[in-house]
Structure formats: structure tokens, C-alpha cells
């Protein structure tokens, strides 16, 4: 790596970041490391290196702090000092100070030093007093009072980041996302340019064929003359000359072909490397969580050991940034709610220290991240009790809910089993945020628990928000990409195996009879004729039903970088993002959830079925139309059923975006919407309605589990006409509100 591009201060910051990580990791692993001499040697080296770097850039406060730490580590190495357990906290304060001062702008350094003088002085004095009160070996770090730490790391490696290296500098090198995107674009373009060599090569091969033909004709002409005839000799000479020229061109063509192969390999590697720039190991985001758990546990008088496995699992950097908040919430919840105090654990026959295990792995192109603890587990009877108290369901229904269904209530906003609210948790906001963030990442979160044995949260996420493994297909003669993770299978269906019923076409597959839907027709781009007597079919499923989506042709699989749609376009129905095919052609990446909704609508359209004469004729009676927007299938269907039974015509949408699209494409008298939904929530939907002249006056009802006064206020302020809680299904609340706003169904 060319370090000359960085200023000295930038290099110092990179080193400070690496050395602070080394110091922090080393200090937190004191209790587990057996080779203590080596550990303190590494700690001393980290402090020493940092002091030297700070001196070069004249960051005097950092020199003072690292010097004080270096003295401590040297004293421990020489046996002059035995650290007491709480001394680790003091030294970690020093690490915090070093991080802070490294981030200060050079111009602000003096004022920072002035205002932090007491803190710096206090730290230096505290370092001088370390171990002074407990110098006997028994109170030393062999038995830490707060054994919160990582598992014993491998004894052999040095603490990570103990030396500055191109890799460690890389952790602090900031690259604008647009610049990275541009590099990926250019790398893709080099692939495309390389693809243009092949037609040139093919053209030259044609020239060679013509030359051979010329040689053959010259030979035929030569043979018309008798041996010894000067014309025959002349023609022989010309033919030889033509042959030499052809061979020269052949050699050049071979060189071009070799160049093309080498350049293709290089371009592919460049493209792959450019894509990999987006990936970072999970350890970039989880290392600091050990410290966080340690601090929280100490405040609560608990003992926790954090084990992390799969730290080297590569994850897209954008995803890493978004993961921080959900992981922090899960860990804080685990320490506060899940883990017992040492006394409670002793009584339960458990070790006094609890273990929280974070495990990451790639599976089937997804990132599986689990956070498990060996704490007290969830008390399901308490959840049942709360569910009834909060009037989500009645007591009889609550008694029938499975443990898995009960766990789902923990993700509701404001739902908490804690009766007291602490600084750590208890307001019931953590898991709500976790679920919302995970949904934003197009992932899912599941929870399971066993009373007395602990709780596990499993996050199922894409490896990257931007890189997606796709199946490329052509629809209406243009390129489209479908995320592989959403495809059940692909197949070719002979025309004679297609059955017709009720105007729709079906094919019998392993999953039973599936409807064949023309992708081009759904996207309003025309229709797809069979190719060579076969249909190319992509089988997609929404969980309840499978559909065979007919495309023009399969064009292969590959990884593409998702690019956002131009904000000028707003939401484009059925399209999630843009990408560039290996050929350089633009491709549209289908939003499978959206597309499945469009397929359902298409399949239900009268025009999608055979148009029978007279169908749809008769007296026109206008039935009032209601749009139900909810991401819960159960709630959606319950509302649809309730309203349909009372004569209203009901359409459903699975989230705010789908609802907004439905509104723009149809005429409705009323909208009933949930609040918490992926992509666009109910509040945003109502804001959109009220901001659009077409829907400004459209009556709107919110139906939500959220029943806090502030939620109600927020909904009504957004412009909803009614705010009902989901318990209103059990009474006439919903129907009364609908009748109040739009009257009867006709």
C-alpha cells in the first residue's frame, strides 16, 4: 500500500486505532491468557509504539497517557506490580482517552488538552497507584472479580492490530461509497471492453478464411497453365505471397486471442476484487461489544463471559454499519433480562458467570447470526398474562398460543415483561428496534427460549445489502435479474405439458399444480411466446402459493452490485434496484415481494382469464372499496373477511409501498392501515396520502397493536381519521369506524 498519500496525522490515527484495539483486547483477556508474560509484552509494545507515533505528530496528551500505561505494563513484566482486578478499568479509561485524543483535530488539540487537563492528570496519578493497595498475589488478576471477557483467545497470535500494517490502516481508510461504486463500475466496464475484442477476432478469422479461398482460387488458376509456362510461375509466386500474408495474420490473431484471454482473467479478477472491497470481517463490529457487555454486567453486579465464533465471516460494510444497533440491543437485553446474578445462578446450580455466545456463519448465501445466553430463559406464563392484560387476545386464545407465537409478542413495541424500568432496558423498545432494523435489511429474526436454560435470537440476513447472487433472465427481450435466494427452482416446460383452466395456464410440478404467469404481461411489456416449443419458467413462492413465472430465456447466474434507482423515479413497482450485466447491459433487479403481489393481482384480474361473452355485463351497482394495508397475513385476512362479510369490496396490500401503489392504480373509498410495516410504515403512508391532492380527503383508519397515547397521537397527527387497536376485532369497533367514515357497503 502506498502510504505516501496519507498525512502523518492520518497515519497516527490509523495506528492509534489499531493499537487501542490491541490494548483493549489484551486488557479484556487478562483473565484467560495463560502466557501472561507474552500478553504484557504485547501490551507494553502497543503502548510504546503509540507513544512514539504520538510524539512524532506532537499529540502530547497521547504521549502522556501511553507513557503512563507503558510504565504500568513494564512494571508488571518486571514483577514489580501485580494488577488488581479493578485496575483493568483504570487502564481501559486510558484506552478511551487515547481514542478520544486521536480523533481531535490538530487545530483543536491545545484547547482539548486544556479542558481535559484534570482528567489526564487523574489518569496518570491513578496509573502510579495501580496495584498499590492489593499487592498480594491472591488479589491479583488471576481471579478477576468481574470476569467479563472474551473466551481465552488463541495463545499464539499477538493481539490483533498490535502493529500497523496495510490491513490495519485499511480499517481506518475512509472511501466515499460513490467512489467505491465508481471503481466497481469501471471494473465492470473493463470486462465489457474486453468483450469487444471477440468480434474483432471473429472478423479477422473471416479475413483468414477469405485469404484461404483466394489461395485456393489462385491454385486453380495456376493449374490451368502447363508446367514451364511463365504465367504458372507468376501465379505460383502470388499464391505463395498470399499464403505468407495469411500466416502472418494468423499469428497476429493468435496473439490477440492470447491477449484477450489474459485480459479477461485480469478484468474478472479486478471486478471480483472491486466487489470484495465492500466486504469486511464481522470482527470489525463485534469486538467492542465485549467491552459493552462487560460494562453493563458490572453495573448490574453480574458476571458475563462473551464468546464470539465466526468473527472472520465476511459481511458487506453497509450491513455491518446497520447491524450495530440490533446487536447492541440484543446483548443489553441478554445481560439485563436473561442473565441471573451470581447468587441466583449458584442457587440454580449454574456456574456464577454466564456465557453469551455470538455465532456467525454463511449458509446458502445468507448470514446467520445468533446471540444465545445461558440465563434464566423466558417465562411463557408471564407473556400469556401480559398478552391478556394488554387485551391483544382473550384468555382462552392466550392459553392456546404456542411458545413460538408467544415469543413473537416480545417484538411488539412497548411489550416488556419487566415491571421496572432501568437505564439498561425494560421499556420494551429494544426488540422492537431489532426487528425493525432486521426487516429493513430484508432479513428475519427468530427467538426461542427454554425456561432455566437460556434464550437464542437468530438473525437471518443477506451477506450484503449491495451484492446479490442473481439469476439473469430476459423478459420482453431485455435483461432482468432475480435474487437466487428467492427462487425455488427453474425449469423448461414443453408447450404440450401446459394445462388450461379458468383462463389460466397450469403446469404440474413437484410442488403440485402451479399457475404459469407471463412475466412480460405482469410487467405490462407484452407477452412471451414459447421458444422451441418450451417455456422457460422460474418458480417463485410467497410461502402460501407457488407461481411459475414465464420468461423469454435464462441467461445464467452471477453476482451483481445493486445500484439504487434514481430518486427522480420514486418507487418503481416490482423493481428493487439496478445492476450491470457482465455484458455491460443494464439490468433491472426484480423486487420479488412486490412482483408476487403484482402476480396475484394479475392472476385475479378478469382480463387474465378467458374473456367470455357477456361476462361482467349487468346492472351496475357500486360497492364501496376498502384497501387493507398490513404486513401480517392473519390480521390482513381477518380484516378482509370481516369487511367482506359485511358487503364491502376489499383489496389487500402487504406494506406501505404496496398500499401506495394499489392506491395509485385503483379507486378506493377507505384505507385501513397498520403502523409497523417494512419498506413504508403506516404513518409514512398517511403522510403520502395527505400530501397528494388525489388522496387528501381519503378516509383513513389506523389499526395497530401500539396502544400508547403517544402512538395514537402520532397517528392522528399524521392525518388518520380513526386510531384503533387490534383488539377492536373482538368487538364492533372496526365496523363502527368504517360505517362512520363511509357508511354502508353500497
Amino acid at each position: 500500500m502506498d502510504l505516501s498519500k496519507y498525512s502523518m496525522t492520518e497515519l497516527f490515527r490509523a495506528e492509534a486505532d489499531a493499537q487501542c484495539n490491541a490494548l483493549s483486547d489484551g486488557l479484556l483477556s487478562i483473565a484467560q491468557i495463560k502466557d501472561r508474560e507474552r500478553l504484557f509484552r504485547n501490551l507494553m509494545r502497543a503502548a510504546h509504539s503509540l507513544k512514539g507515533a504520538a510524539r512524532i505528530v506532537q499529540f502530547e496528551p497521547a504521549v502522556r497517557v501511553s507513557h503512563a500505561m507503558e510504565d504500568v505494563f513494564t512494571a508488571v513484566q518486571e514483577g514489580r506490580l501485580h494488577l488488581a482486578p479493578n485496575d483493568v478499568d483504570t487502564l481501559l479509561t486510558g484506552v478511551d482517552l487515547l481514542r478520544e485524543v486521536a480523533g481531535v483535530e490538530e487545530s483543536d488539540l491545545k484547547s482539548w488538552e486544556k479542558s481535559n487537563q484534570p482528567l489526564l492528570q487523574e489518569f496518570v496519578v491513578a496509573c502510579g497507584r495501580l496495584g498499590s493497595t492489593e499487592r498480594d498475589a491472591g488479589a491479583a488478576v488471576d481471579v478477576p472479580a468481574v470476569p467479563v471477557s472474551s473466551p481465552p483467545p488463541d495463545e499464539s497470535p499477538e493481539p490483533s492490530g498490535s502493529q500497523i500494517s496495510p490491513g490495519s490502516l485499511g480499517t481506518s481508510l475512509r472511501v466515499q461509497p460513490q467512489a467505491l461504486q465508481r471503481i466497481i463500475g469501471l471494473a465492470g466496464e473493463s470486462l465489457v471492453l474486453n468483450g469487444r475484442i471477440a468480434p474483432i477476432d471473429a472478423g479477422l478469422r473471416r479475413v483468414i478464411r477469405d485469404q484461404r479461398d483466394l489461395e485456393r482460387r489462385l491454385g486453380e488458376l495456376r493449374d490451368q497453365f502447363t508446367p514451364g509456362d511463365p504465367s504458372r510461375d507468376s501465379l505460383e509466386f502470388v499464391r505463395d505471397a498470399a499464403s505468407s500474408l495469411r500466416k502472418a495474420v494468423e499469428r497476429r490473431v493468435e496473439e490477440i486471442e492470447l491477449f484477450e484471454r489474459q485480459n479477461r482473467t485480469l478484468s474478472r479478477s479486478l471486478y471480483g476484487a472491486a466487489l470484495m472491497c465492500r466486504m469486511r470481517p464481522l470482527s470489525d463490529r463485534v469486538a467492542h461489544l465485549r467491552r459493552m457487555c462487560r460494562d453493563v454486567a458490572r453495573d448490574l453486579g453480574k458476571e458475563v463471559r462473551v464468546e464470539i465464533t465466526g468473527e472472520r465471516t465476511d459481511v458487506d460494510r453497509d450491513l455491518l454499519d446497520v447491524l450495530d444497533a440490533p446487536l447492541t440491543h440484543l446483548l443489553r437485553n441478554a445481560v439485563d433480562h436473561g442473565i441471573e446474578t451470581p447468587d441466583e445462578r449458584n442457587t440454580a446450580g449454574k456456574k456464577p458467570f454466564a456465557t453469551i455466545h455470538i455465532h456467525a456463519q454463511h449458509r446458502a448465501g445468507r448470514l446467520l447470526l445468533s446471540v444465545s445466553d445461558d440465563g434464566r430463559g423466558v417465562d411463557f406464563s408471564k407473556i400469556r398474562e401480559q398478552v391478556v392484560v394488554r387485551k391483544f387476545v382473550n384468555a382462552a386464545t392466550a392459553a392456546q398460543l404456542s411458545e413460538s407465537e408467544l415469543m413473537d409478542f416480545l417484538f411488539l413495541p412497548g411489550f416488556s415483561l419487566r415491571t421496572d424500568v432501568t437505564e439498561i432496558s425494560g421499556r420494551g423498545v429494544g426488540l422492537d428496534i431489532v426487528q425493525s432494523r432486521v426487516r429493513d435489511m430484508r432479513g428475519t429474526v427468530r427467538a426461542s427460549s427454554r425456561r432455566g436454560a437460556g434464550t437464542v435470537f437468530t438473525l437471518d440476513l443477506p451477506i450484503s445489502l449491495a451484492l446479490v447472487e442473481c439469476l439473469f433472465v430476459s423478459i420482453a427481450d431485455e435483461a432482468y435479474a432475480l435474487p437466487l435466494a428467492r427462487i425455488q427452482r427453474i425449469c423448461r416446460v414443453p408447450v404440450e405439458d401446459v394445462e388450461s383452466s379458468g383462463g389460466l395456464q397450469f403446469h404440474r410440478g413437484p410442488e403440485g399444480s402451479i399457475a404459469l404467469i407471463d412475466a412480460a404481461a405482469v410487467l405490462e411489456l407484452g407477452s412471451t411466446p414459447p421458444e422451441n416449443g418450451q417455456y422457460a419458467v422460474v418458480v417463485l413462492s410467497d410461502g402460501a402459493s407457488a407461481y411459475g413465472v414465464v420468461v423469454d430465456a435464462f441467461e445464467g447466474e452471477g453476482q451483481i452490485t445493486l445500484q439504487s434507482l434514481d430518486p427522480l423515479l420514486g418507487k418503481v413497482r416490482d423493481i428493487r434496484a439496478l445492476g450491470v450485466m457482465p455484458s455491460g447491459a443494464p439490468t433491472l433487479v426484480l423486487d420479488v415481494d412486490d412482483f408476487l403481489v403484482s402476480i396475484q393481482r394479475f392472476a385475479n384480474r378478469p382480463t387474465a382469464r378467458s374473456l367470455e361473452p357477456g361476462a361482467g355485463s349487468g346492472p351496475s351497482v357500486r360497492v364501496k372499496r376498502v384497501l387493507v394495508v398490513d404486513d401480517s397475513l392473519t390480521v390482513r385476512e381477518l380484516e378482509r373477511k370481516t369487511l367482506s362479510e359485511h358487503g364491502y369490496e376489499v383489496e389487500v396490500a402487504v406494506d406501505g409501498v404496496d398500499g401506495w401503489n394499489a392506491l395509485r392504480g385503483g379507486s378506493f373509498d377507505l384505507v385501513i392501515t397498520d403502523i409497523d410495516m417494512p419498506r413504508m410504515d403506516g404513518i409514512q403512508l398517511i403522510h403520502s396520502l395527505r400530501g397528494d391532492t388525489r388522496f387528501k380527503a381519503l378516509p383513513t383508519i389506523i389499526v395497530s397493536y401500539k396502544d400508547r397515547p403517544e402512538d395514537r397521537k402520532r397517528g392522528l397527527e399524521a392525518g388518520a381519521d380513526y386510531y384503533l387497536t387490534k383488539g377492536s376485532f373482538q368487538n364492533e369497533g372496526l365496523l363502527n369506524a368504517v360505517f362512520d367514515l363511509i357508511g354502508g357497503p353500497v
Partner: protein
Amino acid sequence: MNSSHSVGVVPIAPEWRDEWARELAAEGSGEAKVDGVGYLVFRTGSEIYALPATCVVTTGPLPRPHRIPRRTLPLLGISNLDGTLFLVFSVRSLLRAAGDGDTAENMFVYRNEDIQVCCAVSETLAVVPFRDSDWLPIPPALAPDSPFCARHWAEWQGRTVLQIDASEFNLGIREAAR
């Protein structure tokens, strides 16, 4: 048809080049000055338009756009220009311009405010300097037939050039994208 993606290769009007040369050659003149503002002059259908050259990033042949489902003219789709994806708009449709069929084989990349899009046109002709005094108001009687963002016209090589107001052109693009 232009074969390059550089605005620099759009033919520079000879009078402007000569004027520059005179300015630069003028002894003791200090900083060179050119009278007039550069405009990209292009044809779409049978009409000629001029757009401030400061809003034009590049010109070149138009790669075939990928259509966007359920979106119609003036939005033609998306094209890849040197590794970057751009929305492509038919300028003829955007301006509701007159003329025979829109061949739109060429394009220029337009950048203004937060908008950066590819504009499909029949032909890019030249970068031409126009003075403020060159532009004349379009007579009220003809205004209804003029594109919404054209208020002035000038004469260039014996032809009528309609001046496009960039801020109004922006509004047109925003409306067409939705």
C-alpha cells in the same frame, strides 16, 4: 453522428474560435474575454434547440436504453454510459417538439442541480456562443406552440434556434420521471 463521449469534440462554431483567437492574440489585452455564453445546439425531430453548455457533461451516440416497466415517454429507460447508469429521456417528447419521427440516435448527459440524466436527441450540432442580445422573445402568437421551457429564439446559420431555460427544463424532467 458523433462518435465520441467528449463535449470537446462537438464542432466549435468557427466564429467563436476566431473570436477567441483574436482575443488571445490582442497585445496587452490582459485576461482574454469572449463575448457571449456557450450553448450546446442540438436537433430533435426537425427543430433546433440550444441549452447552456455548462449543463452538458458529455455527448455521444445513444446506447439502447432498457425500458422501465409501466413508465412511458418521455422516459425511455436506463442506459449504461461508461459504467454509470443514467435515466434516458426523449427530449423531443419532453419538449413536445414537432417534426418527423424521433430517431434519437444521439445523446448528451445533462447535469443541473441534483439532476444528472441522459437526453436522447436526433443530433448534437455545435457549441455556439450567444450574446444576451441575440435572444429575442418568442412572439405571443407563437408561444402556445412552443415548448414549455422555451421563451426566446435566435438565428444561427440561417435557422431558428429555441433557447431552453435550464430551470424549467429541470421541472420537466422531474415531472416526466414520476
